[in-house]
């Protein structure tokens, strides 16, 4: 999946003042690359990822996915793209607390209308791939935070997403677990040819990223 943003701006109104979280950003991500966006807290990383992930609408500017102008897409079509072509990994994992690890991974497949058998087989395989073959029936509160993030990554891969958008995936993790998670995302990018976009503070991701951007006060700059 190729994602391109042109002159992208997102502003918020907070009381009487206007905040520009993303300011005239031009951005391009090519297929099967690992792109890192770094920047301090409040620099607009999450806002940019929400825009790229079609979870939010820009105030101005456009986002193209495989040359299709997403501003012309209906809410239903945007939702379909998120379901079938994108996977999301959040800083706080956002697993559904009442579902087991297996059910959390099955959920996107269930929404995509896959058979129960297919869901189960694939979810087990994905959880085994992220090293959680023995934690299938544990609920999120019974898992460590590292394990929860692995479940979230498995969920992001459930519908064979072409792109994974990870917002501070190591933000809540200790350095050892963070390293494991980065390794996992790197492996997914290299082995599955999945495009990965990561917003992070983590130096280790910076080292392995194909493309690095910095975002400060909503302004994006290409580093390499």
């Amino acid at each position, binding site marked *: 999946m190729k994602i391109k943003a042109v002159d992208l701006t997102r502003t918020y109104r907070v009381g009487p003042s206007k905040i520009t979280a993303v300011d005239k950003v031009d951005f391009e991500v090519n297929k099967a690359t690992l792109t890192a966006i770094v920047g301090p807290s409040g620099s607009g990383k999450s806002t940019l990822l*929400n825009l790229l992930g079609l979870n939010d609408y820009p105030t101005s500017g456009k986002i193209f996915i495989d040359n299709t102008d997403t501003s012309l897409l209906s809410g239903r079509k945007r939702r379909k793209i998120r379901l079938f072509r994108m996977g999301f990994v959040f800083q706080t994992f956002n697993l559904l607390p009442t579902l087991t690890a297996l059910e959390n991974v099955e*959920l996107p497949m269930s929404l995509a209308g896959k058979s129960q058998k297919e869901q189960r087989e694939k979810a087990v395989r994905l959880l085994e791939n992220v090293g959680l073959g023995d934690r299938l029936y544990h609920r999120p509160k019974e898992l460590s935070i590292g394990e929860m993030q692995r479940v979230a990554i498995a969920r992001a891969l459930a519908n064979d997403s072409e792109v994974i958008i990870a917002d501070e995936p190591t933000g809540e993790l200790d350095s050892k677990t963070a390293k494991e998670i980065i390794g996992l995302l790197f492996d997914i990018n290299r082995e599955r040819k999945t495009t990965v976009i990561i917003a992070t503070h983590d130096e280790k991701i910076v080292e392995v990223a194909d493309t690095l951007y910095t975002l400060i006060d909503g302004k994006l700059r290409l580093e390499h």
Partner: protein
Amino acid sequence: MRYTTVIKEMNVLFSGQVMVVSEKAIVIQAIPIAGGLFQESLAEDIKENIKEVEKAVPVLFMTPIRFEEMIQLVPVNFSMGIPVEDWQLIIGPTPLKGGVGHFPTNESNHEVVIGASLADQYNWTVGKEIMVNGHKLNVTGVLDTKLALLNRCILMPLRLAQEIYSKSRSVNIISVKPVQGCSQEELADAIEQQVEYVNALTEDERNDMIQPVLAQVETWNISIQTVIFIMSLILVMTVTIMSISERRRDFATLDAIGAPLSYVFRLVILETALIGVLGGILGIAFGSLAALVLSSLYTNIPLAQFFPSIFEIVPPIYMLEIFLSVVVVCCVGGIIPAIDATRMRIAEVLKAEY
């Protein structure tokens, strides 16, 4: 429900007959619940002077409020004094339970038959001596009937009833059977022309008398149900909105991973419907139990005796109506929260959290 059943049964007891009561009596379907005594000899006068009359039976119908030294909040026990030779006209072919015992005779001055519910409640059996209004009476039989009125009744010869209630030669009902070919209306008109101080009520008139009361009860029921419906709706809506609000991150996550709006909507409605199903079942169970307990408290009839008649107190159709209403209330109450849940966006939720 039980009282409306009893009220409706009153016409079963006096089916096909014109009921003569005093103009001054307060009556429910021709059963005088207060005032309105007249001389027993009026029955004989009616029989002799009105050609449309085949039979006229004087009855003393009493609703004792003090019984076995217990004060009843509502009258649930009745005494009926009837001339022995005319019993069949009033209670029809009602047999005695197990064929044991006998109906009191004309000579008897202390024998009575009783309803099965009374017998069960006080453990009265044939041959047992009981106290009614300070008089010792002998139980000579237990009525085998399904009529609630007769089940709570002490039947005795008219003379005995007049004696123990100190109503010498007085009665408060005359049950009049028309001759073949004469309508109840014709007979009633003839009686009222002949006797100035009475009302002669046909079966239809008796039903018409109670209809406004039943209609009023129905109106009250509908009003109360409407208020409860609206309050429940608001309550379900509020609770569901709070529940959705606590799980806004979950719903926003569902939206982020591409769940269709219809899926989120159905999820919330299904949840409230399930709450409705559970609430309905529990509500019916506890509500029915509460109805039995209240009936027992108000009538002094032991709770156990109400269990066999639970479907009379809360009929199955009412249970079904209540169950469906609760499920519908919950589903309708879930609509606004469900719409709210479909509007949760991950960008807004995360922005609010950070």
